[in-house]
């Protein structure tokens, strides 16, 4: 059955710089925003943009991710004719191979794409937090008669050296790529979102697969090869909130962004809903001693302490006289009484013993607390007069 556009969502990345958070978890499956996982934003964009044929490419620690995606039900991608397909590395008669790079992952799934005989293929990554209507980039792609279109966003000039920069003419045609330039000519950074004419991409993928010294990566290999051949490459300028939550610092920052009064990315925008699983916990209860300010709190939480500038996922319990500031608490976390947390990320189902004090200073990376961390570093303490003073002044 023919489809105009097939979407390939790259969700196999290791997310090494997220350290503890991606220890046994693919980056797209990392919890985000009090009820979501990172990939929910991209999958919701797909359904909101009427992209109904989606292949999700997984590789690294896929168990939680597969469980979360399932057959795509929360995103209405459980469809009869197309819908969501999970594409993991597989064996064939010639043996088995992992996905070697972003382009290689697509090359190994050419059969999947051909099934739908598409005119266009869109390549996305499941690592970013943003709302975007992919129909608009597809429309520009058609209007400019491009061979490939790359979505780009203007980043602050001082950060240009962290990104792949696109140099374009006035009509947005790309004439040069600069990978992490020291002195950028431009501040238009690639967002890792591409649309290709499938017949052309297929040719380049097959060519790239033969090259021994290639990393089989879109940014490093395939797109530069297309540019060198004088193909029509265009940039699509995206305006709006877009965050690569690639490090613990930026992951924490993105959460603090959500707590701004004028949220740059509204998760309750009825025109652009973000979908996810619902865990069916009871309503959240703020008890007589509880207090919450500048925070996001999900179902099933019981709050008897003070919460400020924090995000609580579902089923988190905070006991009395505890203070939680600038922290992110994953589902099922239990915080005892007289605890102080500031700039802390607590992983799923971790219990923080009474009287624990964990504070990361503003110039430090936020502390990530896992079960091992609690075992090794947090032994329940006797209540000291100093500690008592600290908690009461909070």
């Amino acid at each position, binding site marked *: 059955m023919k489809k105009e556009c097939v979407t390939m969502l790259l969700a196999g990345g290791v997310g090494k710089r997220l350290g503890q958070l991606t220890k046994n978890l693919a980056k797209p499956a990392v919890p985000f*925003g*009090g*009820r979501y996982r990172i990939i929910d934003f991209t999958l919701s964009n797909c359904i909101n943009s009427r992209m109904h044929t989606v292949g999700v490419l997984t590789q690294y620690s896929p168990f939680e991710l597969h469980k979360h995606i399932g057959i795509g039900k929360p995103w209405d991608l459980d469809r009869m004719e197309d819908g969501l397909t999970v594409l993991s590395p597989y064996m064939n008669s010639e043996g088995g191979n992992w996905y070697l790079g972003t382009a290689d992952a697509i090359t190994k799934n050419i059969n999947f794409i051909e099934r739908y005989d598409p005119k266009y293929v869109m390549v996305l990554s499941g690592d970013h937090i943003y709302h975007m209507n992919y129909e608009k980039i597809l429309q520009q792609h058609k209007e400019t008669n491009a061979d490939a279109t790359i979505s780009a966003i203007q980043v602050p000039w001082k950060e240009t050296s962290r990104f792949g920069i696109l140099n374009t003419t006035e009509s947005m045609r790309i004439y040069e790529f600069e990978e992490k330039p020291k002195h950028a000519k431009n501040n238009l950074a690639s967002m890792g979102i591409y649309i290709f004419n499938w017949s052309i991409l297929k040719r380049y993928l097959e060519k790239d697969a033969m090259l021994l010294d290639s990393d089989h990566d879109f940014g490093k290999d395939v797109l530069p090869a297309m540019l060198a051949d004088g193909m029509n490459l265009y940039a699509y300028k995206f305006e709006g909130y877009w965050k690569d939550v690639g490090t613990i610092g930026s992951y924490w920052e993105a959460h603090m962004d959500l707590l701004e*009064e004028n949220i740059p990315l*509204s*998760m*309750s925008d009825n025109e652009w*809903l*973000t*979908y*996810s699983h*619902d865990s*069916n*916990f*009871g*309503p*959240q*209860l*703020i*008890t*007589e*001693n*509880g*207090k*919450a*300010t*500048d*925070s*996001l*709190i*999900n*179902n*099933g939480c*019981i709050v008897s302490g003070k*919460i400020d500038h924090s*995000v*609580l*996922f579902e*089923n988190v319990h905070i006991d009395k006289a505890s203070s939680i500031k600038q922290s992110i608490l994953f589902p099922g976390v239990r915080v005892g009484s007289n605890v102080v947390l500031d700039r802390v990320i607590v992983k799923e189902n971790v219990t923080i013993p009474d009287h624990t004090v964990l504070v990361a200073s503003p110039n430090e990376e936020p502390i990530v607390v896992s079960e091992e961390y609690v075992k090794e570093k947090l032994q329940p303490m006797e209540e000291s007069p100093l500690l008592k003073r600290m908690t009461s002044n909070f």
Partner: protein
Amino acid sequence: MESLMGLINLEHEHDFLNELTQTRCPAAVPFAGRYRMIDFTLSNMTKSNINEIAVFTKHKYRSLMHHLGSGVDWELNKRHGGLYILPPQENNQSDMSKGDLKHFCNNWDYFERNKSDHVLISGTSFISNMNYQELFQHHLDTNADVTLLTTTYNLSTEHEHCLKVDTATNGTVTAITSDKNNPHVFSGIYIIKKSLLAELVEKCIATYKEHFFIDGIIANLHRLNIQSYQYNGYSFMIHSVDSYYKNSLALLEMNNYKQLFPVGEKIYTKISNHAPAKYNTTSNVSKSFIATGGVIDGAVKNSLLFRGVKVQKGAVVKNAIILDDCTIEENAHVENIIIDKEVTVSKNQFLKGSEKQPFIVAKQKTV
């Protein structure tokens, strides 16, 4: 193995909730921050491995149908069994049956097709988080024709409308009355053998009866082996505005909350896609439920806020139940009140009911 099917019978449920039941039947009335009344019975059934459930609706069931849909949120959208909503029908012009007997009559083929030997029949006014398997086991162990689920309450005016049960020492039911001083309350939930159900339905219809429980069971009390099974967990019954309001606010006590919503024993409801509740800088919330999608800038005390409720700066919400998508604008004050869906309480407005009798605002109003 003996098996059980479910029937939620709404035929004889009355619209006791004034404005809240103006446009919806009691089963569809929102309850406890993110549920509707029917969710408790329905979730208890699915948790008890009852996978085939019929619902007899009578009237004002649009919001109920919308809520239940295909039953997907209770995992009842299955190829085998699942949810059957059975609205009133006029299949046969010579049919003389009335009340819930008309439902049984029109849908008897559905019951016959079902392979279960027993039927659990329930209303929606008994709120609990329980598993019916123990009740079923008791029903089988005592080889009962009918087993009633009962509980014991400290009686107050809210229990005046409940049926009460007298039992012999072995648990056999000897009388079902409306005795105001009997604390042994019938929950409205019972299990009956399907063969007996067929027999009694037929007899009732032949004699122009219209209420199966009264005319089929109570009237034959001494001919049948009717047992009672006492449930001692947390529960309450909602039969009036008073009991709705009181029992809702009682859930704000941690002890009650943990009994109705123990971790791991979920109550299912129609899934929404709201973001987590947002508490802004000036929010001051204590002893309250806030459902997802809420945005709080004002003060909320001893209240239940459903999904998507906005409380703006300077607003005060106290002893209140506020249903989905309401907005309480700046410096408004609402107290001792139940506000139905999508109501806007405008700036500086002051609305206060009495503690004994909460004020109710009908849905989609601006006040």
